[in-house]
């Protein structure tokens, strides 16, 4: 290699040195003008922000809709009433076949007293009051105490199988129901004597005077 080529080769790739690079850097940085964020970047930023907000709002709306339309729970008493419905006993003789509807309803009510609230009892009593029967109410109630087991006895049998309420409470419920019926009968101007006697048997005491019972 001749001298010329040697000199040219030695010049290759060599870079001069800046005597004070930090000073030059600071000089450059201090002279930089303020840059605005490009418009398309700003648009993207705004667009992305709106997208995030709308996504969050959509999720909240769906959640709110689902919450509003969630399946509502049935009252416990109604559920228990439905599950503990007992079929009506089949009548054993012709007289019982002619048992009016009000008695049959009373059977149903009696058999379900173990699981109903007082409000339900009142409702059932109202049903008894509304539905008119061909035979007098008391006469039809009297048939309960014939040969066939009374509704209370059937309820007791049922309770023995699936005791849900204590006997004491059951008795109280029976008494309340009977008193309600008595009230209805009084309003219907029916004789109340047999019914009062029935109540007395439930309470385990002798029949009181009528005015004492009516006054309750």
């Amino acid at each position, binding site marked *: 290699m001749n*001298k010329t080529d040697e000199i040219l080769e030695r*010049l290759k790739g060599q870079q001069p040195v800046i005597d004070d690079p930090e000073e030059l850097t600071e000089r450059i940085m201090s002279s930089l003008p303020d840059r605005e964020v490009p418009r398309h970047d700003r648009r993207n930023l705004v667009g992305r922000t709106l997208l995030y907000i709308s996504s969050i709002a959509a999720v909240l709306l769906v959640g709110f809709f689902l919450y509003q339309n969630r399946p509502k729970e049935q009252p416990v008493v109604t559920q228990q009433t439905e599950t503990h419905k007992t079929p009506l006993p089949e009548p054993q003789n012709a007289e019982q076949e002619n048992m009016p509807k009000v008695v049959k309803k009373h059977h149903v009510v009696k058999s379900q007293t173990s699981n109903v609230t007082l409000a339900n009892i009142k409702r059932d009593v109202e049903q008894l009051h509304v539905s008119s029967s061909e035979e007098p109410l008391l006469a039809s109630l009297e048939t309960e105490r014939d040969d066939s087991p009374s509704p209370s006895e059937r309820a007791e049998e049922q309770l023995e199988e699936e005791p849900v309420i204590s006997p004491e409470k059951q008795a109280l419920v029976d008494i309340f129901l009977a008193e309600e019926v008595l009230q209805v009968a009084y309003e219907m101007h029916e004789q109340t004597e047999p019914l009062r006697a029935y109540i007395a048997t439930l309470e385990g005491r002798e029949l009181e005077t009528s005015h004492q019972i009516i006054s309750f």
Partner: protein
Amino acid sequence: MNKRTQQLESEILKRCQRGDKAAFRWVVQSYQRLVFSLALKMLCDEEEAKDIVQETFIRVWQNLESYEPGRPFITWLYTIATRLCLDRLKGMKQLVPLAEDESMLRQFASSSSEGRAIENREWVAIVRMLAAELSTKQRLVFTLCHLEELSSSEVEQITGMDAKQVKSNLYVARQTIRKRLIALGYE
């Protein structure tokens, strides 16, 4: 530049495009010597070269949104610096070698150590001695191809010349410099 470094640089440049000055400081510190080297060899004046470096990075900062991420940043940087150097050369007087420039060249040529770093005043003297008879385009192509060791394709992108023009200018520049060195007594 390996792939990892390229990815890092790409991420930094994205931040710069978003107005991150701290990220741009990294760019300045990484590339200011490279731009200074080109400017000094083109203009043969240290202060003018520093001005070109400052102006180059200001232009880069202002036009970052026009930078295409797929294009090498160094090529784009060289393009800006080259245009500024050519504009500055138009306003400068033609390079005339000084008396001390020849002695510095001889001192450089006679030194035996090849790894010795060339001082900035030596660079100025050598370039004034060797490039005095070159045209602006020939000086530019010789500086980019030979002194900065850029590839022919990069020089085409930076200068806007086609391959034939680059090759032609480079050949003429080398021939002219060789004749100059021979005239100075270097065979």
